[in-house]
Structure formats: structure tokens, C-alpha cells
């Protein structure tokens, strides 16, 4: 009668022990790593909108200020998606027969809002306020990336709590003169950190990290 366990079983046991140990560490570790990937955070995923709106064209080619459409960004928590009427301020004059703009005309004449798909979202228990950031010199590009280079807008930053806190702890890196907030190409002159410190004083920036700053 042959022995119940042969030498190869030793190897098998060692391998299975290794697999179990690797799994115990690797699965949570892998999940944690996965959660930090752009995929898990919904980044780098251009979102198709019901209307083929191209930010590149409107901002770069036509030079329209971000705040022409997102016109409550400096006075309200919400930046606002423009109302249909605002599109027609121009498009009643130009491209007013374009089939691409049919949904806009339909929305306006049938009084049916356009349904845009959300790109950026913070959880319900987070109260982000655009106006204070814009008024203290945090540029659009700091959170939203190069929207002027996106055919369809994608999430450019993770918007995790760590992302927010990094800036709230060291705002200098993301400050600019208030007049330059919508400028996608602005770069500080000289040492960025030194310039940031100066801007923090100029813009009267006092970031807070108390929980209720964002969670209420």
C-alpha cells in the first residue's frame, strides 16, 4: 500500500498555503488598489451627452467665457447647467437651422428641459460651494481639468475627500488671481509655491478643515 501522502503533496500544501496567504492579502489589497484606479473612480471616461455639445469649440474657438453659460458659479453653490434659453441667445441667430441643434429648439418650443448627464458628483452628505472657491482664486481647471480640450467632458480629478483635503491643507498650489479663474492656460510666474503664498494673502484665503466645512 502506497503512503497516503507523497512528497509531491508537500509541494501542493506549500503552494496552497501560499495561495491562501496571497489571497488573504491580495484580494483586499487588490480591491484597495482597484478603488484607487481612474476606472473605479469614473475618471477618464468621456460621457456622451444627449446633445453633441463640444466645449473645445465654444471655449477655444469662440473664446466664450466659462461663466457665460455656467453663470451662477461665482454666486451660488451650484455652477448651473445653462437653461435652454441661454443656448438660443446665440443659436437663434447662428446655426439656427442646424440639425445638430434640433434638441435645443425642441426643448425651447416644447418647454421640455434638456436632460444632461452628470459628470461630477460629490456624495449627498458633502456640501460643495462653487462660489467661495471661484471668488478665492481656485481656477476651474484645478478640479475640472482641461475642459477646453475635451470633446465630451470626462471627470478629470477623483473628488475624493483626500483630494479636497490636500488643497484645503495646502491651497497655495491651486491659487491664481481671481481675474484668471477661468483661464485654462494660466501659469504662475516664478516659484509656484511662493506665488501661491502671495496669492493666498492677496485673495484673503483661509481654508478650513473642520468637518462641518463640507459635511452638515
Amino acid at each position, binding site marked *: 500500500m502506497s503512503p497516503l501522502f507523497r512528497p509531491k503533496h508537500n509541494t501542493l500544501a506549500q503552494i496552497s498555503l501560499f495561495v491562501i496567504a496571497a489571497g488573504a492579502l491580495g484580494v483586499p489589497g487588490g480591491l484597495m488598489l482597484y478603488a484607487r484606479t481612474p476606472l473605479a473612480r*469614473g475618471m477618464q471616461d468621456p*460621457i456622451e451627452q444627449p446633445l453633441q455639445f463640444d466645449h473645445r469649440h465654444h471655449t477655444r474657438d469662440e473664446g466664450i467665457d466659462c461663466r457665460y453659460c455656467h453663470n*451662477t458659479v461665482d*454666486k*451660488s*453653490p*451650484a455652477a*448651473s*447647467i*445653462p*437653461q*435652454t*434659453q*441661454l443656448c438660443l441667445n446665440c443659436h437663434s441667430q447662428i446655426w439656427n437651422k442646424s440639425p445638430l441643434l434640433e434638441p435645443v429648439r425642441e*426643448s*425651447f418650443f416644447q*418647454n*421640455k*428641459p*434638456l*436632460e*444632461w*448627464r*452628470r459628470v461630477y*458628483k460629490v*456624495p*449627498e*452628505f458633502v*456640501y460643495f*460651494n462653487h*462660489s*467661495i472657491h471661484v*471668488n*478665492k482664486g481656485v481656477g476651474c481647471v484645478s478640479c475640472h481639468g482641461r475642459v477646453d480640450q475635451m470633446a465630451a467632458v470626462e471627470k478629470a480629478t477623483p473628488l475624493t475627500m483626500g483630494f479636497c483635503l490636500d488643497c484645503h491643507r495646502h491651497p497655495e498650489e491651486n491659487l491664481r488671481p481671481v481675474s484668471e479663474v477661468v483661464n485654462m492656460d494660466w501659469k504662475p510666474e516664478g516659484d509656484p509655491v511662493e506665488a501661491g503664498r502671495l496669492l493666498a494673502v492677496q485673495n*484673503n484665503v*483661509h481654508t*478650513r*478643515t*473642520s*468637518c*462641518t*466645512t463640507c*459635511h*452638515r
Partner: protein
Amino acid sequence: MSCDDNHEARAKDRARRSLPVVGGDRVGERELGSREPVAGGTGPSQGPENNARPLPLWRSIEERSLLGPHPGAANEFPGGAAELDGVSRRSFMQLLGVSTAIATVGAACRKPNEKIIPFVRRPEETTPGNALHFATAYALEGYTSGLLVESHEGRPTKIEGNPAHPETIGATTVIEQALILGLYDDDRAKQLRRGGEAIAWQTYLADVRTRGAKLAEKGGAGLRFLTGPTTSPLLADLRRRILERFPQAKFVSYGAVANDGAVEGSKMAFGRPLVPRHHLAPAAVILSLDSDFLADGPEQTRLSREFGARREPSRDMNRLYVVEPAMTVTGGMADHRLRLRGSDVGSLVATLCGLLSGRGLSTLGPVGSLGHGQGSWDPKWLVALCGDLERNRGRSLIIAGRRHPPVVHSFCAALNVALGNLGSTVEYGAPLTTDATSGTAALGALAEDIAAGSVDTLVVTSENPVYSAPVDFKLAQLFKRVPNVIYHGLYEDETAATCNTFVPAAHALESWGDGRATDGIVSIVQPLIAPLWGGHTEAEVLSAFVGDGDLGTHELLRRYWRGMAKLPGNLAGSFDNVWERWLADGIVPDTGAGAESGVTINGQALAQAAAPLLARSGAGLEIAFAIDPKVFDGRFANNAWLQELAHPITKLTWDNGLLLSETTAKGLEVETGDVVEITYRDRKVEAPALIVPGHADDAITLPLGYGRTATGHVGRAVGFNGNELRTSDAPWFDRGATINKTGKRFKFAITQDHFTMSPDGRESPPPAVSAPLAEVLNAGSMFHEELEERRGPQAVIHQPVDYSGQAYKWGMAIDLNKCTGCNACVVACQSENNIASVGKDGVGRGREMQWIRIDRYFTGSPEDPEMINQPLGCVHCETAPCEYVCPVNATVHSDEGLNEMIYNRCIGTRYCSNNCPYKVRRFNFLDYTGDISAARELGMNPEVTVRSRGVMEKCTYCVQRIERARIATRIEGRTIADGELQTACQQGCPTQAIVFGSLNDPNSKVSQLHTDTRRYDLLHELGTRPRTAYLARVRNPNPELAKGD
């Protein structure tokens, strides 16, 4: 006092006391003092039956009479509180497994994309994300109060008082605060119907047209309108137009609560119907004859403000005498309270007149001669009152309650005139309501008409008369005999069940309209939202009878006011501009009604008229009906905020009880919770008895407004219906009720023993402090010595954080001297902070969620107690005990000293609540917000997280308002000015008892109050360094009646 001194003092204290040892060293750490209690003057009044050490403060009769702590009080989470209903341990584990699996799978999936839906045409004034405030008005009993309603993207979410309105001056009543919940009530009637058949508005209009044409042929004979009391100029104009077309038609006003006594009383006194309007600013002495003027009636907000303003401890402080059968909010504020059966009040006033006529007020002689000179009151009390009134001629005020008959009001008028108060504390003006009276008398005439068969079409816009009318009218049967009854109401209620055409009403916040305040100032009512379920206004229902039914109220209103605006002396400019101005301001200028001049009294004639009315009342137990401070006449029965609100006196939620005094209860061998059968005039009602301190003996009180059989799911079968015993000839008081025990027991949900601060620490200093004025004004008195020990630095283990370098150091001060306990703050907080309701069962288990509770303490004997209210939310301790024990840092301190609660971190251990000495934390035992209706979701404040199950919550000092104000001012490059930022409770408070602001600003109101000599900290001995300070209550007793004399 420095910390070291304090240590020494403590050591000394310990040496002279025997410390009770309860639960080990925790209690030992607390400085348990057996020092003389401060409450109720220099010493406690000793009840003779109380042979143990008397309690300075007590909350319930049980607590007072028990020698040990109240059973259950010690347990913050009483038995069953943590159990999951109807789920066994086994099925709980199964659910847990399944939900974990789902959560794991769910977490791995990408979140679904959300839609963003912008406006097609954004209204000019709207900035998405920023709230707007619109001025409007609300009329509970015909008279309007001005409101300012917060609206988020078209959804009204919060109600404030309009500071520009003369009657609300920026504050609100409990009922006004709760209107928001009523607006989004999914149980409201939604369908216009004829019989059981749903019809369209146009069909209804066609119906009215045909019927109207037929009625017009007979001049409108057989057409009757039963409306609520109203001051609306538009409705008055519609009535005029209807009567032009139907000259034989009749209008009747009816409200369950009416001011008829005052109107008829002034008719007796002055020969013409007039309505008194009161002013407390000049009043040094106030006598309330069973008038709950601080929490009832259309003047309550203004009167509370004026009353509070004169409660500052000085020689100028007012003195309040209250005569009443059952304790009310006003009675709780009294410096001298006399409990007296309602039917004896008339005799007391006549006696008072007699006493005053003997002191030189000879005009009162004839009336005074009607007094019996004695009654169940202490003659010394009346003599002292007399002296006070006489010394303060022209600066006193006598207010008679609305429940009292005309004769009491006429004497009250005679007294005010004789004391020279006319034009100073009281003025009389012509009634502003379309009908001078709206009580049972006019309704009786209508009932007779119906019984005689002369009514063909009855239009009812009055609030649920079938439920609230006296039972002897038998309105339900009568209405069924009318061929055509059109009822306009918010709910399919008891009245709707008797009518054949039902028109769902638009809520006050969905309606256009107008109305006048008690001083005549007109407000335009503008809607905050289009009717959610297609309701119609009263004006639309009435205008159908003159062919304007499809115009809409907005057009009707504008047409009417366009005509009025042409009147000389009114604003110049185009009507549109004027109109916009009116809407924006919430008031129409120059519309105030002046007082009547030439008001004189013929004492002889009055005495003659009054003599037969003042006959001695009958014998037997007195039965009294009371207006409920929560559900009013029952119309708010379906409002969970109001139902779950603790009654200001009884702390009862979700019910009414038969109120009686301890002595009466002993005589009848009844205990709290016994279901008794009340027999009165051969009618019987079963009700659970509830013994309340301060109730008159040989009397029972039945709060009205409960026992609804037809309303939404919240209010159905809550409490018992006192209206079933109420008759038209004695709508408020009568003698001759009998009570029999049924042997059944009833379980109340009473909150008075919930969240007890120190169930084991009964010897610690009383939480609510009260002292007589003389002691407060004497800087060296015992009072100040006591309070000195209850503020200032206290030795603590942790080094206190220095907040002086921060821009703000938030703090609050609550002046117990101004707090009437009206509950407005509680509901304001509930509305602002999306606080859930838990239902009667939940309250019974101690799970109520309101962030503010009003601790109502009594001092003295249960027969004649004094009452102190102490609103208590989180006090934001600088060394907060809750923070040390949270294992996940879900409650931490902000840089400005707020004790923050982070819902997304909370895992629900409840350690924080366990360790909170103030017991102000609230735990979501169940998912109270998971199944709310889609409509209710619209009313949530979008700036506050809606909490779900398993999360702790508590007062945040309205941090969303702080952050909102901070951002607004930081953008402008300045700091938040004092008074610019108000918490919800502060804004709602009618007496301005709550003040909030930065303690780093030495000039802020709150800083000044924190350094007031009356300031003390609650549980100061624990060294928690609370940011909310309390200011001691001050009583202003008449020296002639001072205790111990």
C-alpha cells in the same frame, strides 16, 4: 474664582456632604451639591405629604412623590428601545448576510449616471442653489400673520415670520412653523368630486351655473354660505357681489374657536360691537382672566415679544397675574397664578370691580355690587392684586380669555376703562372680520333653517364644521338633508363625508389671497408653489356664483386691488409697480384700522344687563373644553410635527387626555392612565385621565381637536373627541359632569421623564434656576452667590483649547426669563434640520428625534406649582464628553468650538449619547425617512443631510446657516456681523429668549448675555464648559403676597 480656589471649595464641599455612591466614581467626580436649592426663591416650598427631602424641581407628579428616581428615568435607552420590531435574531442574521452580499456586489459596480435637468427658461430672480424668500401671509382665524417663506428652486422649505409685519415681527407660532409639513401632506384631498364621481373644475363650474341660474330666479332663497371667520377684503367683496345677485342668500361665519365673547362683551359695555387690541409694552401689571395670550389667538406673537421685552429684571419689569382653571403657557409665566374654575371667573371679576370701586374707582360701583365678595380664592390675593392695579392706573391691562362669556369681557372692558388703560394698553376697534361674530350663535340660526327645510344649496368653506360644531346641532344629519352641499376642504374629513360636492382646497402656501392683521394692515397672500394636487381657493369657489369661477384667484385679486389702489392717498405709480411692492414687502401700507374714539361705559346699564347673566353656576363637577396648542380645533390633526410635539404643560404627545387635578383625581379614585367615562347631559365619552399640576379642583378639562375619524393616516383615531360632549349653550364651561371608571387602562406617550439629565444626581443644583426680583437686584444676595459657583472656570483634566484667535467662537444664551415654553423653537428646528417623526410607539420607547427638548420643571406643591421652561439642545461643550468615547471620530470639535456630528462616519455605537450628561443626542433607531412620500421629499431642507437608520444626530447650532453666512460674507470680504446670522430656533422664538452669535466679539448680544449676572451653566460642576449659557428666571412677586408672609 480661579481653578485652585475652586478645588479648595470642592474639597470643603465634599467634607461637609455625604456623597451618595451610585455606580462608582462617576458620580463622585461630579460635584453633587446639597446646597440650598435656588429654585423657587430662597428655599423650596415644602409639601406636607413630602416627608423625604423635598425636591426643588420636579417634572411629574410621580417624580415628586417618589423617594427614589423615577423608574425608567435612569435608563436612557429604556427596555425595548434597541430592539428591532418583529424580527427574530435568526432572521436578523439572515438579513445581515444578504445585505452584506448585496453591499459587496453593489460596491463593485459603477454608480449609475445621474441626470442634471436645467430650466428651459430660468426665472429672472432664480439662482439655482440659492434660496429665495417670499413674503406671504397666513390666517388661522381670519386675522393674518405675515410670513417669510424660504424657497429652494420653487419648493418652499421653511417658514419664518416677516419682520416687516406688525403682528409677527419676524417670529412665528408653532402652527405657522408646521405649515410646511401640511403643505406636502400626501393625505390631502386631491380629487374634485360630485358624490363618488370625479369631475373636472369646468364641470363643477357648469353645475354651479345651472344651479345659480335657478336660485337667482328666486332671489337666492335657499342659498346659504357657511364660511370661516375672515378679514379678506376680496372675500368680502365677493360676498357683496353674491348678495347683489342673490339678495335672499345668507352668509354665516363659523369657527370652532371664536372671539365672540369679546365682541358681545363690548356690545354690553359700550353699546356697540368692538374688538380689543392689546399692547404690553406700556403694561406694568397684567391680569389674565383665563387668557392664554402668549400662546393662543391672533395677537400671540406680538404680545409674546412685548411681554418678553419687559421681563428684563429691573424696577420696570412687568408683573403677570393669571387666573385660570388649567395650566397654560401664560399661566406658567405668571408671577402669581390663581387656579379657579372657569365658571367662577365672572364672580371673581365682579368682586374685583367691587374692591376697586372701594378704592376710588367709583365708576365700577354698580358692577362691583354684583360680586359675591367671596369665592374659592384667597381674599388676600385679590386685595394685593387690587392694590397693584390701582397703583398702576393707565399702565395695567386686564385680558379676558376667549372661552369666557360676554359678561366677563364686559367687566374686563369696564375695568380697563376705569383704570385708564384705554389708549395705552388696550384699544377698541370695529371688528375687521366680515361677520362680527363667528361662534355658535350664528351657526344655530343656520341649523334651524336647514331643519325647517328652507335650505337648498349650502356652500361650506368653514373648517370641518361637522367635526367641530357643538354636538346638539347634529350638523352631520342636517347636512345630509340639504339637497346640495358643496364643501371646500383640505382633507376628505368628517364634513366631506356629508356633502355631495367636494372641492379640494389649495393649501395656504398654494393660494393667492388677502387678509388683515389685528391692526387692520392688509397682506397679500401669494403662493409659493402651484397647487400640488389641483386644489382651489375659497375665492374661486365663491366666485363661481357670480360667474367668475374660471378667472382664477390671482386675476380676481388683482382686479379687486386695482380698483382699491385708485383710492386717494394710496401709492402713486402704476398698479403693477405698487402690486410688486406689496408682494415684496408682505404688507399693504396705510391700511391700518384706527381705534374707535368715544368709547364710554354706562356702569349702571352694564350692571343691569350683567346681573341676570352672572347667576351662580350650577353644582357638580365642572367640565371645561380647551383649545389645543398643537392641533388647534383639530385641523392640524394630520400634522406629525404637531402631533409629536410635547404639549407645553403635560408633555403629552400623540394624544389628548382628560385633565384634572391630583385632589380631584384622589376624590374620584382615578389615576393617570385610567380610562374613565365622562357623562354630561346624558352624553358619554370615554377618555383616559391625566393628572396635571396646577389644575383647579372639582373640574375636568377636555382638550379639543382630537378623536378625528376622517382625516389622513397620521391623525386618525388619535385621542378622544371632546366635541361629542360640547353643546351650544355651554360651549366652554358647565357644571354637572360625572365620571366613572371603566377599569380599562391607557398608555400615554409622555416625554417628561425622557432624557433625564441626572437621574441619580438629584442632589446636584437644580438645572433651572429661578429667583425673585428683589434677590436678583440685590448684588450681594444668596442668588448671586449661588450662581457665581455655577459659571466660570472649572477644573478639568484636559487643557482647554484657546479659541480667542479664531474669527468666531460660536455661543448661545437662553434667557429662561423670556422662554414661555411655546414650542416654536422645537418645530422650527425640526423643519430646518429635516428631523424625522417617530410616531406614538416610538415616543413611548423614548425615541423621539427633536433636537430641542423643552424641559418643563415645576416647583412647589402639585396644587399650585410654579413652572420653569428650559429649552435644551446640544450645548456644544468645549470639553465634550461625547467626543472622548466615539470610536470612529464621528463627533469632533471644529476650530470655532462647534461640537460637530459627522453622519457619514457614525457607526451607531451610541457611546456618545451614553456619555452625554445633557442627554441631547438623538439616535435613528429605524429608517424614519426611507418611506416618506415623494411630496414630502420636496419639503426637505436641501442644505442638511437627511439621516438614515443607525446614525446619531443632535443640534448643530444650525451649522448650515453658519457656513452659508460665512461664505456670503467671505466673498464680500468682511466678517459676519452680530445679528446677521440666526439659528432656526432663535429666529422662530417669539420672545427672543434665544440669542446666538460669536463670543469673540465682546459687543455681540450673546457675549453680553454670557457676562450677565444671571448667567449660569448647566451641569457646570462637570467641567464641560458648555457654549450655551442660561440666564436665570426672575419672578416679580407682589411684596404683599411674597412667600412666607
